[in-house]
């Protein structure tokens, strides 16, 4: 049982220990989908959504594994359960809301096996969060991911109009900016302690 307050968990997951900029999880969508603000926002929404689902799944499966006295199967069963649950949710959305499916559809399969999702599930087990804490943790992590993605997208959109030196144009300047962004987020490290 963990005694951290819900507010602290949220702030910690979104800012202090931002999944992308402090833990370096989910770097591939961070660099891949941050070209445009619109797709970045959608991707952030999709990731938050999947995080919430996988957090619930991980809580359930962890409870089951403890009951069966086999916690060493944690990692592999998390992957299986999260992947199939997202698949299930995808089918459900496709049936119930075609509009939402068109907005999220292409992102969902991309996210299912993302390290940020698996990392979230493993962290919450390690920290022994209860159900409500896990939920808030997932919400915070998702918000932090969206925030990082949107910041990056905004910067990259500005970058298109700026006169960057030839040597750093393209991927180089993107990675440089990601580094500086990460550096700024390190400034949150004293928050809440």
């Amino acid at each position, binding site marked *: 049982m963990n005694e951290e307050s819900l507010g602290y968990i949220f702030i910690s997951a979104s800012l202090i220990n931002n999944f992308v900029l402090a833990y370096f999880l989910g770097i591939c969508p961070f660099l891949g989908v941050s070209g445009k603000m619109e797709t970045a926002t959608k991707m952030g929404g999709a990731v938050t959504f999947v995080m919430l689902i996988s957090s619930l799944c991980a809580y359930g499966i962890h409870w089951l594994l403890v009951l069966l006295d086999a916690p060493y*199967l944690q990692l*592999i069963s998390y992957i299986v359960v999260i992947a*199939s649950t997202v698949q299930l949710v995808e*089918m459900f959305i*496709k049936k119930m809301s075609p509009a939402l499916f068109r907005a999220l559809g292409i992102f969902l399969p991309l996210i299912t096996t993302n390290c940020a999702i698996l990392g979230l599930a493993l962290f919450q087990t390690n920290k022994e969060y209860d159900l409500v804490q896990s939920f808030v943790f997932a919400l915070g992590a998702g918000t932090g991911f969206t925030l990082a993605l949107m910041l990056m997208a905004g910067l990259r959109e500005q970058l298109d109009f700026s006169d960057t030196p030839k040597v750093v144009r393209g991927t180089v300047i993107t990675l440089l900016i990601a580094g500086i962004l990460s550096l700024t987020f390190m400034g949150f490290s004293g928050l809440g302690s």
Partner: protein
Amino acid sequence: MVVFLALAILGGLTLVLAITLVFANKQLYVYEDPRIDKVEEMLPHANCGACGFPGCRPFGEALVAGKVLPGKCTVGTSEAREKIAQYLDISLGEEEKRVARLACAGGANVARNKANYNGLPSCQAASLISGGGKGCFWGCIGFGDCEAVCEFDAIQMDGHGLPVVNSDKCTACGDCVEVCPKGLFSLEPVSHKLWVACKNLEFGDKVLEDCEVGCTACGKCVVDAAPNLIEMINNLPVIDYGANRQGKEAIDRCATGAIVWLDEREGAIRGKESRKIIRQENKVMGPS
């Protein structure tokens, strides 16, 4: 023993999940009309949005649902449209071909620059800085955003920095209409022969100072044309294309050649009394 327990747990877990997914796949199966895929295949895959739908697939869905007719797609070949019409057993609904037209004729050889713009070579960027360098606030800036945005290679910049539309290649997708910061492009049916190639809202000498081919709002075309065909609104002739009464007489006495007759073979024909432009080099920049 532990190995068997692990195998049993994982085996059971995967089995349960697999059964759930199979069951869900049956229960949540979404029926899609197979004709949508077929129709989409026959469409040009340009996803340009000229039909008013977000892309070829939504247009295909609307076609299958019977909401539109294949003629709305102006991009594909007429054979492709006929094939779709036959496949769905609906009428063709052919629409008149439309092309993008530029309402400006002020190239660098006839229009004066009031300032020298040295920034990012893009009309959208230039127009942000007090409307670009052109003397005429309404005129074409000439960096060719339209040429860049056209997916069909239908727009080429001529030697004087004016876009020229190749009407054979133009599919009326409307990308250039959207990208032009001055709003100079519009999609016009090819039967609209009479055309005002100017958007300058000033009148008289004020226009001529900036551009030799601008409309001075003298009103001769209004008098010469059929009654009520042309009306002067905001110092520009506005043509009523409704009843097909267009005639060549309207362009005859235009002194600057701002109103033209667009011929299919000869291109834009200027009036007999319009002044001839023989200068090829750029106009010198000077104070207004």
